[in-house]
């Protein structure tokens, strides 16, 4: 299928995510220091480092869903912070949405992002505007669906999602946190971006870039 994303892409996506997270470890730590407990970068770096180790050591997963399931289980047991159950649920739901398909077409890509987003909302019960990663995942989902409906390719769907996630993360800055640790700060949480929204943008950016590279 032209421009469809396969298992190899899913593996590349995760390796690239691990790289970007490691590169931005200190940035994520510093964002979390201001309105949290200064561990988001460390948590995710630990988690995705473990994901790469799993991918290196275990037999190659047979479907994209199998990759995402491995990621979900690994993040769940290694992250330790809120991001563990949140991203764990996201990747698990994303895997479920893909079923045992070998390839991900544009609509499946958009559906995968929605499933991840809905999983995060189910797990954390945050609404839009609560200054959480939901504020990155929600516009990402909407942009991905709009792009898919307009006939975009899978890499284009992911690019739309990543761009919207970055914008969403940026837009968390003025918000007052109503969920997670940052909500302890009340009004003092305004004026800083939410670390989980920023890491969401990195994850989706890694998805888009690896997809584009594969079809360059």
């Amino acid at each position: 299928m032209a421009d469809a994303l396969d298992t190899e892409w899913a593996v590349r996506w995760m390796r690239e995510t691990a790289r970007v997270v490691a590169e931005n470890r200190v940035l994520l730590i510093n964002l979390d220091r201001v309105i949290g407990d200064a561990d988001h970068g460390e948590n995710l770096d630990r988690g995705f480092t473990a994901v790469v180790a799993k991918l290196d050591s275990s037999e190659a997963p047979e479907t994209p869903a199998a990759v995402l399931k491995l990621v979900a289980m690994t993040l769940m047991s290694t992250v330790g912070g809120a991001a563990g159950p949140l991203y764990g649920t996201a990747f698990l739901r994303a895997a479920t949405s893909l079923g045992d398909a070998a390839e991900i077409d544009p609509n499946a890509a958009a559906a995968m992002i929605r499933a991840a987003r809905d999983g995060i909302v189910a797990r954390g019960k945050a609404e839009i505007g609560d200054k959480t990663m939901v504020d990155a995942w929600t516009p990402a989902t909407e942009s991905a669906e709009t792009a898919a409906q307009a006939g975009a390719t899978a890499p284009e769907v992911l690019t739309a999602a990543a761009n919207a996630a970055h914008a969403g993360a940026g837009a968390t800055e003025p918000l007052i946190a109503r969920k997670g640790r940052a909500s302890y700060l009340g009004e003092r949480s305004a004026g800083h971006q939410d670390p989980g929204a920023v890491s969401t943008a990195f994850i989706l950016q890694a998805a888009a870039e690896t997809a584009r590279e594969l079809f360059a």
Partner: protein
Amino acid sequence: MTVGLVIVSHSQKIAEGVVELAAQMAPDVVLAAAGGAGDGDGPSRIGTSFERVQAGIEQASGGDGVVILTDLGSAVMTAEMVLEFLEPEVRSAVRLAEAALVEGAVAAAVQAQGGATLDDVLRAADGAVVSI
């Protein structure tokens, strides 16, 4: 047979301390500490661990049900995630309290020691008066 408790905290010390405190008034109740995060060796990090919560539930599951108490919101999310992975017959006897961790654990442990039902133990946790 009594209801067992699982004490989920971001800090291993808090979880262990709550267990030692509650055990004084509830010597026959299974109290499982699921505190901190980490991989076996080395001191625990601050955080919550899927595996430790899972192990705690297993440890506490021998009796008339399990009540889980948590400290902060991410501990709640970790616990809920673990619940989704439980077999339905185990899951049906597990409750997640919305309680003050230390105060709720002592109140719940005393009820469990007295042979209270799962729902009564849960009620004792949720209704625990702060600093009786």
